[in-house]
């Protein structure tokens, strides 16, 4: 199992989630977050905005589905032809165990 944390633009959230659901990855958790990246935020005039709103999507998927999920997020989360600064990041971490509470079982 792998935990995929994808940080995407808020306006791309619905599209990304719809595409994931269409590909069979319906289960997801999302949180509204703020953050900045390598560019140290956005500078408009003299004002620096370093708490830029993003949406964090959390998904736990079996190891073999990792590439599919990442491909969908990369393709839909991108803006413009070659992507733009601020389109987000994807982090992948290992998950050792998963329990489903409603069925009281181990596994997704």
């Amino acid at each position, binding site marked *: *199992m792998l*935990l995929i944390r994808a940080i995407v633009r808020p306006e791309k959230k619905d599209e990304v989630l719809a595409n994931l*659901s269409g590909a069979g990855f*319906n*289960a*997801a*958790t*999302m*949180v509204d977050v703020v953050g900045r990246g390598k560019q140290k935020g956005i500078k408009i005039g003299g004002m620096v905005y370093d708490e830029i709103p993003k949406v964090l999507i*959390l998904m*736990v998927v079996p190891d073999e589905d990792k590439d599919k999920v990442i491909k969908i997020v990369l393709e839909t989360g991108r803006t413009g032809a070659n992507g733009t600064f601020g389109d987000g990041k994807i982090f992948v*971490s*290992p*998950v*050792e*165990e*998963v*329990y*489903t*509470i*409603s*069925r*009281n079982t181990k596994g*997704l």
Partner: protein
Amino acid sequence: MKEIMAIVRMKRTGATKKALVETGVAGFTAVKVLGRGRLITDPTVIEDCRQKLLSMGVDDFSDTDETERQVTAFLDGSRFFPRRLFTVLAHDEDVPRIVEAITKANHTDHGIGDGTIFILPVTDAVRVRTGETGEAAIW
């Protein structure tokens, strides 16, 4: 050292907190999140409930298609519902106890939507107050 991420019903936040204290794990971090789970692919499962909700929702004023779309999304799992994400840091040997306590506090008879528990490995932790690292930093 393990990180336990538990996604639970909003209403069960209190019960989960109580269960954690009773297990001897007082420290946790909680965030309000939106979540969804498995998609219901077999429409016969939700048909009864769908008809019931539609009969309540359809009136002369609202758009029938829109009502139908919303009711279906509400039942088939494609809509996001508010949930609480608990993050608990624990020693390896305490993990089964905590998982059992959270499961017990959150299990309902609905059969769906009670949440999921993920267990992730943690390489290091630091307590800011004292600078302790590793297992000593947890509790």
